[in-house]
């Protein structure tokens, strides 16, 4: 058992009765929360948070249900309506090839959302498990994992991805997800490791260990509940970062290729060949979609951070 630093010992004298019962993992988390629950109006997460969550869920639903929604096919060309603004027939207008922009944006959001969420979830599982173990058991494994995460984070992500996919053809959603996971996992590893470290010498963990709790119980019942808030709030930022990265790649024409629409390549399309002068709506709608999605994610992460009283994570 690692020797406790003196300030912990000092602190534990006063809070011993409160905080040292084994199985305090969940209670320790609850003691950091405002007295009322997550859902109550006062002291809860607030209306803004739930609106943002609803908005993100709505966007995901649109993307999932895109093919059953009553919208046109994303690549269908309506020659009677080329470059028109919003009308009843085309709610968001059409592009220079007469394709319905509403449909293109909704279908295009699929790529952004998959690349936004899938690698972060994979990174949470991989980086989270590694971070939990490394933070709990400092030792050679921790040193190695730490070094690996530093090396992976030292690479400029966009550059690495665009260069690797040039040589590793053809580009596919799966390959992009794999590469983005390599970006996400070390970031999440660092956050979760740092958070675990800050809890692993707390009294309730020490007390549980003293009563002979197994490592699995310590990790899953004592430490994990306390790490979830930081992990979720940071994962939301991670989703935003991944969406921006994928959008940048698509804008450069280096994400999933045409004819599959993605938000980045619709913006690129809207900027090319006088389209910005003739029909600014092509670039405007996907830009607006990205802006609203990122705002919702950032607001949610910000709210969670202040709700759980997390300090800005420094890496």
């Amino acid at each position, binding site marked *: 058992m690692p020797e406790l630093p003196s300030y912990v010992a000092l602190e534990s004298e006063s809070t011993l009765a409160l905080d040292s019962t084994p199985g305090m993992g969940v209670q320790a988390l609850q003691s950091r929360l405002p007295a009322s629950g997550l859902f109550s109006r006062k002291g809860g997460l607030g209306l803004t948070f739930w609106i943002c969550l609803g908005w993100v869920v709505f966007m995901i639903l649109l993307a999932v249900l895109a093919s059953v929604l009553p919208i046109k096919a994303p690549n269908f060309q309506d020659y009677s309506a080329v470059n028109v603004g919003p009308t009843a027939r085309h709610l968001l207008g059409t592009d220079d090839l007469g394709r319905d922009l509403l449909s293109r944006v909704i279908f295009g959001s699929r790529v952004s959302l998959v690349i936004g969420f899938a690698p972060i979830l994979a990174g949470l599982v991989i980086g989270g498990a590694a971070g939990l173990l490394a933070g709990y058991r400092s030792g050679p494994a921790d040193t190695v994992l730490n070094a690996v995460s*530093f*090396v992976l984070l*030292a*690479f*400029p*992500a*966009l*550059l*690495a991805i*665009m*260069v*690797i996919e*040039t*040589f*590793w*053809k053809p580009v596919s959603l799966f390959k992009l997800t794999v590469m983005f996971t390599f970006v996400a996992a070390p970031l999440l590893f660092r956050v979760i490791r740092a958070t675990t470290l800050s809890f692993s010498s707390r009294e309730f963990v020490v007390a549980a260990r003293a009563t002979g709790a197994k490592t699995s119980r310590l990790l899953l019942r004592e430490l994990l509940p306390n790490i979830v808030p930081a992990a979720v709030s940071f994962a939301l930022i991670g989703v*935003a970062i991944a969406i*921006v*990265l994928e*959008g*940048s790649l698509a*804008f*450069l*024409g*280096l994400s999933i290729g045409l004819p599959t629409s993605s938000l*980045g390549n619709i*913006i*690129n399309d*809207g*900027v090319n060949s006088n389209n*910005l*002068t003739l029909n*600014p709506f092509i*670039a405007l709608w996907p*830009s607006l979609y*990205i*802006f*609203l999605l*990122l*705002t919702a994610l*950032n*607001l949610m992460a*910000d709210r969670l951070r202040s709700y759980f009283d997390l300090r*800005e994570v420094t890496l």
Partner: protein
Amino acid sequence: MLRFTATRLVQLVVICFLISVFAFLLVHLLPGDPTLAILGPNDTPAARAVLLHQLGLNKGLLAQYGTWIVNIFHGNLGASFLTKQTVTNALSVAVPIDLELIVVSQVLALLVAIPMALIAALRPNRAFDRVATTSTFAMLSLPTFVAGPLLVLVFAVTLKWVPATGFNRLSQGLGPNLKSVILPSVALAIGSITVYYRLLRADLIATLQEDFVTMARSKGLSTRYILLRHVMRPSSFSLLAGAGISIGTLFTGAFVVEVLFQLPGIGFQLVQAIYGRDYLVVQGMALVAAVAFVVVNFGVDYLLTVLDPRVRRA
């Protein structure tokens, strides 16, 4: 301190070595015979001989890496088989553009963020602070590939103040040069303003509550004097840390901006090389860009530790 410097230097060298290994192995990701893919339609015996000399492909993997890295240390980063231009040559054109973009955008970002943070921190949660904090929060959700087209739409297409694309060298006069970099720089600065403003504001508010500020107030010093002489300096470390954080964003943003505005910087040339399947140019440029990124990152990090000993202990 010496020990710290040595450790950091060793880390830097190790990471640069790893980058070179990754860059070297890239060619081997190509399906089939890499020479066929690299040479493409230019598969002449002469070109093949040059390529074999450059990559040493007929030797073992370790010897190949040796040949390749020795070439690089001799300044031979390879040449395009399409345009016959050497990578070193292309870089000498591209690097000044990137530097100018970064310098102009960062100066702009600081010019906006510092006064904003000073005014906001002086009266937190009042009208100005709320407006400034909300608008920077919105800017957080404006990636360069969204902000760039919007700026072009407003300032180049509608108002026609500046050209939408193209680059004028400094040798063509300062005015035309600035006109061609101002819009891209603003697009790049948007991300940095947010980072600088948020960090500096938080730090300023914390510093303003220190005893020495109360002391200075009780001496009757003016608010402006206290802000600029007493509070700004201890709060400015986070600005430097912010610079470190925004390097990655800047890098990504610069690529997008260069393609959008057709500025022949590293990002633009790299993307052109990728479109043209000019594999050796991609490899050489990526190597230089990645090493530059890592070195700058370490430089900022190191500077931060030298200036603020608290970081080293943490």
